[in-house]
C-alpha cells in the first residue's frame, strides 16, 4: 500500500523529465536526440500494437510492416490525391489498416503458429510488391513519395521539437488505451486464448472474434505509427516497408519482453538505439545486428524487461520466504 502512495511522485517526475527532454537535449547541444525520441515514440506505438496481437493474444505476425505501410502510404496518398488535411488522413489510413488487418485475420485465425507466420510474411510481401509496382504508379513505385508535416489546428509540426510533443501525447494515449483494453474483459479473453484456445472456447469466448479483434487493434496501432513515420520523415519509399521492418518489430517486442506495457517500450527504445548506433559500422551493420540478436535470443529468452521482472520476482520471493520463516 505504501508503494501506491509513492507512485504518483515517480510518475510526476517521469512526466516532468519527458516534457523537459527536448530542452535538455538542446542545452547539451545534442539536437539529434530529439529526432531519435520521435522515432522511438512511433516504434513504441507500433510494437505495443504487435504485443497486443502476440504478447496477449498469442498470434504471431511477421508481416506488420504491411500495416506500417498502409498507414504511411494511406495517409500520404489521401493528402496528395484528395487534399484532405493531414491529421484526418492519418486517422482514415489507420482505420484502413485495421480494416485490412481484420480481413486478413479472419481466415488466418485458424492457422497454427508456423503457418500463421508464413501467411503474414506472404501478406507483407504482397503489400510490398504492390508498393513497388502499383497500378498507374500511384505510390511512386521505387521512387516513393514526398509529403508534408502534420498541421494541427493551424500549427505546423515541422520542427522535431513540436513533433516530439505530438509523439509523446500519441504514445501516452495509445499506451493508456492498451492498458485499459488488457485490463478488461477483452484483455482477459485474449490472454485466455493465448493460454489455451480450446478451454477459452469452452468458457464461452468466441475465439475467432477475439483473435480478429486483437489482430485489427494491433494493425491499428502499427498503422498509426506508419502514418506518424510518413509525416515525420516527410518521405516514404518501399525500402522502409520490407520483411526486415517486420522482423525489426518482432525483434523489438521480444527484446523488451512480451505481454506487458513496459516491455515493448524498453524493446523499441533499446533496439532502435542499437540499430542507430550500428550505422557507423556501415557494411558490417547487419552482421553485428544478427550476431547481437542471436546472443540475446540464446541468453535472454524472456526479453530484457521480462528477465528483469523474473529476477525481481525471485529476489522478492526470497525476501518473503525469509519473512515467513522468521515469523
Amino acid at each position, binding site marked *: 500500500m505504501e508503494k501506491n502512495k509513492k507512485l504518483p511522485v515517480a510518475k510526476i517526475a517521469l512526466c516532468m523529465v519527458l516534457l523537459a527532454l527536448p530542452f535538455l537535449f538542446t542545452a547539451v547541444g545534442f539536437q539529434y536526440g530529439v529526432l531519435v525520441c520521435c522515432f522511438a515514440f512511433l516504434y513504441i506505438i507500433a510494437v505495443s500494437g504487435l504485443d497486443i496481437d502476440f504478447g496477449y493474444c498469442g498470434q504471431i505476425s511477421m508481416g506488420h510492416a504491411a500495416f506500417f505501410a498502409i498507414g504511411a502510404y494511406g495517409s500520404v496518398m489521401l493528402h496528395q490525391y484528395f487534399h484532405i488535411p493531414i491529421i484526418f488522413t492519418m486517422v482514415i489510413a489507420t482505420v484502413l489498416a485495421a480494416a485490412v488487418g481484420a480481413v486478413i485475420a479472419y481466415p488466418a485465425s485458424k492457422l497454427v503458429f508456423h503457418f500463421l507466420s508464413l501467411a503474414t510474411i506472404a501478406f507483407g510481401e504482397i503489400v510490398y510488391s504492390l508498393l513497388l509496382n502499383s497500378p498507374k504508379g500511384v505510390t511512386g513505385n521505387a521512387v516513393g513519395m514526398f509529403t508534408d508535416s502534420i498541421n494541427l489546428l493551424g500549427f505546423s509540426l515541422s520542427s522535431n521539437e513540436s513533433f516530439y510533443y505530438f509523439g509523446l501525447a500519441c504514445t501516452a494515449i495509445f499506451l493508456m*488505451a492498451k492498458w*485499459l*483494453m488488457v485490463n*478488461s*474483459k*477483452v*484483455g*482477459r*479473453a485474449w*490472454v*485466455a486464448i493465448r*493460454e*489455451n484456445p*480450446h*478451454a*477459452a*472456447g*469452452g*468458457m*464461452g*469466448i*468466441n*475465439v475467432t472474434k477475439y483473435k480478429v*479483434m486483437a489482430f485489427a487493434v494491433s494493425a491499428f496501432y502499427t498503422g498509426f505509427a506508419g502514418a506518424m513515420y510518413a509525416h515525420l520523415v516527410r518521405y516514404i519509399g518501399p525500402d522502409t516497408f520490407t520483411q526486415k521492418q517486420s522482423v525489426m518489430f518482432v525483434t523489438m517486442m521480444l527484446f523488451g519482453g512480451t505481454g506487458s506495457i513496459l516491455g515493448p517500450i524498453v524493446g523499441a527504445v533499446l533496439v532502435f538505439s542499437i540499430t542507430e548506433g550500428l550505422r557507423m559500422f556501415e557494411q558490417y551493420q547487419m552482421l553485428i545486428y544478427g550476431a547481437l540478436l542471436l546472443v540475446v535470443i540464446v541468453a535472454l529468452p524472456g526479453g530484457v524487461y521480462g528477465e528483469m521482472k523474473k529476477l525481481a520476482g525471485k529476489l522478492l520471493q526470497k525476501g518473503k520466504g525469509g519473512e515467513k520463516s522468521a515469523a
Partner: protein
Amino acid sequence: MVKRVLLEIDNLCLSFGGLKATNDVTMHMEQKKINGIIGPNGAGKTTFFNQISGVYKPDSGSIVFDGKRIDGLKPFQINEAGIARTYQVINLFKKMSVIENVMVGMHPRLKANFFDSLLHNKKQKEEEAKAREKALDLLDFVGLKEYAYAQAGALSYGQQRLLEIVRGLASDPKLILLDEPAAGMNSTEKVELNVLLRQILERGVTILIVEHDMKLMMDISDRIFVLNYGKKLAEGTPAEVQKNPEVIAAYLGGDEE
C-alpha cells in the same frame, strides 16, 4: 407437478472412420438432478461429452437443451446457452491468476462491449466490480479465496480441479458437465467433492458427471446412464443399474481398470 426435462438427447450418432463412437444414444435428463454416466474404458463417454459441449458435431440425432436445439453449435455458443464444462485433463489458464480464471468463466455473462472495455466507462467499471466480488464469493464457496491472486498454475492438483469447477460455475450455467472431476484426488478430497456436488445442486445447477469412481457415482447420482461401446446399455437409479445383469456382464467381461 410435472418433472421438467432439461437436456434431451435423441438418437445421437457419431463415427470416426469405421468406429461408431456414439451409437444411437438417447438420454433424457431432468432438471436439478445429478445425472451420472458410467461405462468401461473406451465406452465413448468423453466423446459423448464433447458432442454436448460442441467440440464434436454429431453425425445424426438431436440435442435439445432447455427447449432449444444445440447440436452443431460451436463450443462458445453452447456455453452461452447455459452449459458449462470441466475437462478430464486440467485445462486452466495457467499463467493467469486464480480470480482471473474465474472471471474468464463469466465472460458470456458480462455485457460490456469492446468500446466499454476500451473506455472503462461507468457501466464497465460497475460490471467489473460486481464480477470481481462474485468471483471472490465463488472462490470462497470452494475454499480457494485465499489463493485468489496466486497464479493458477501454482495451485496443487486437487485445487486446480476445484478451480476448474468454479470456473465452470462462474457463467451461471443451468447445466454443468463434469468430466472425471475426482481423477487424481485422494479419499479426503473425494469426500469434499461429494459435499461440493450437492452444494452445487442446491444452487439450482443440474449436473452431468462422468466418473470412474463407482462408490462416488452410486452415492451421489440420482440417475445413472451406462455406456458401452458407444451404446446406451442401461439407465435407472443407482440401485436399478447395479442389479442390471447386462451392466454386470459389461463390467465383469469388459476391460475394467
